[in-house]
């Protein structure tokens, strides 16, 4: 299933079936329209082509597809104001099984002006950056309730100020790696760096190298997307 948002100058196509996201910065409403029609709201011609051949439209077939879309658009009389109310239909599941991501460059080479083509060529580079964001292929089994205990277990101690209102989902930031330092003891000073034990020394050494200003600091690997964008805005992270 595709998720797509269309702005006046920004098309975001998230082709989750392919495991990659495309963020396409464009200004041309026409191009947006074609891309949206082709990828987000596939026409019969597009479906036929992709399902039958299990491949994306090549340079040769694009003009034909576009003419089909043009024809359909005319029939539907979709002008720009009506675009705002456009609701595409979900893509048939068979389309979700493409062997490789859409070749955006092939599309652009036939139907775009030179300026747009240069912009489109950045799609491939941009796509790579969003792979972790969009690799959401698998499903996670879940249950909506926690079963009640069958054994007489310990009860929660009273008097703890626990926030039971705020939704818990997304209260953790995704991380690339979790490093656990085995200390053999169950409690530590408030900041691990302040420990006089080896764990304190180790944490300080890790932060010195991988923290901000360190030689191995890599904002794109170590920080979550949220903190990364805050940093890009010059805010405190």
């Amino acid at each position, binding site marked *: *299933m595709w998720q*797509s948002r*269309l702005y*006046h100058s920004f098309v975001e196509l998230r082709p989750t079936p392919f495991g990659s996201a495309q963020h396409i910065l464009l200004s041309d409403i026409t191009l947006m329209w074609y891309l949206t029609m082709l990828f987000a709201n596939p026409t019969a011609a597009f479906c036929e082509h992709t399902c039958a051949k299990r491949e994306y439209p090549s340079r040769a077939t694009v003009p034909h597809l576009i003419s089909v879309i043009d024809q359909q658009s005319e029939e539907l009389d979709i002008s720009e104001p009506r*675009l705002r109310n456009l609701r595409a239909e*979900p893509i048939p599941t068979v389309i979700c099984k493409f062997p490789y991501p859409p070749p955006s460059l092939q599309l652009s080479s036939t139907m775009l002006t030179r300026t747009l083509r240069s912009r489109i060529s950045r799609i491939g580079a*941009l796509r*790579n950056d969003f792979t*972790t964001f969009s*690799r959401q292929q*698998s499903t*996670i*089994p*879940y*249950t909506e*309730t*926690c079963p009640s*205990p069958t*054994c007489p*277990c310990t009860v*929660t*101690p009273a008097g*703890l100020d*626990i926030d039971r209102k705020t939704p*818990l989902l*997304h*209260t*953790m*930031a*995704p991380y*690339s*790696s*979790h*490093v*656990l*330092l*085995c*200390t*053999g*003891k*169950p*409690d*530590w*000073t*408030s900041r*691990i760096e302040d*420990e006089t034990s*080896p*764990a304190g020394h*180790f*944490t300080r050494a*890790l*932060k010195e*190298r*991988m923290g901000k200003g360190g030689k*191995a600091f*890599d904002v*794109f*690997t*170590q920080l979550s997307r949220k903190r990364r964008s805050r940093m890009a805005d010059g805010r405190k992270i």
Partner: protein
Amino acid sequence: MLTTACSFDASSDPNATTVLLFPAFKRIRNVPHTAKGIDALISAYLKAQKLHSAHAPLSDAQKAELMRDPSLATHLSQPEPVTKPTVLICGHGGRDQRCGVLGPILQDGFRADFARRNLDADVGLISHIGGHKYAGNVIIYLPPNMEDHPLSGAGIWYGRVRPEDVEGLVEETIVKGRVIIPMLRGGVTVDGSDIGRIVEAQLKIARGEDMTLKLKPRTRA
């Protein structure tokens, strides 16, 4: 990168630390506290395997500095795979009393439950991971060798875990392989995806929310 201390047995060498890496599920014993040892750990296990394209303008030397170099792993002991489910509970009483009080109770609860089920798993306390107000905070790492387990290779974060929830949590997540929505804070899958986002999307579909494509123009100021 998230760095925490944990209560698992320390290295017998006072000048070295045993390190566990998740979701790589590796245990590296006796990483020396020397600059060389720590640099080797960072370069061989923690740096990026593939550089972000924003780094493209950097020189080759600068790029090499940021890239992972598996050859440096030879400076450290051979990594051992972590093969048991690992339950980590925030018990950082030195930072906040809520985790400090609940952590050890939950640890005993998990240990008792694993013993009752005759299940082999590691349970330990860890330092602050964020969100004391959601105590007890529990992270469950399920090793990739648990084949056929739907969550194998994943790390699942739970919050507001009460001692009475422990039995259900073990039953659902470790035995059956299902995440429990009311306690779920998020998680990482074996390939680095965000479990929170995946589950959120599934919930929307299950609750019949409109997942059809919507095209909305951004309102101009």
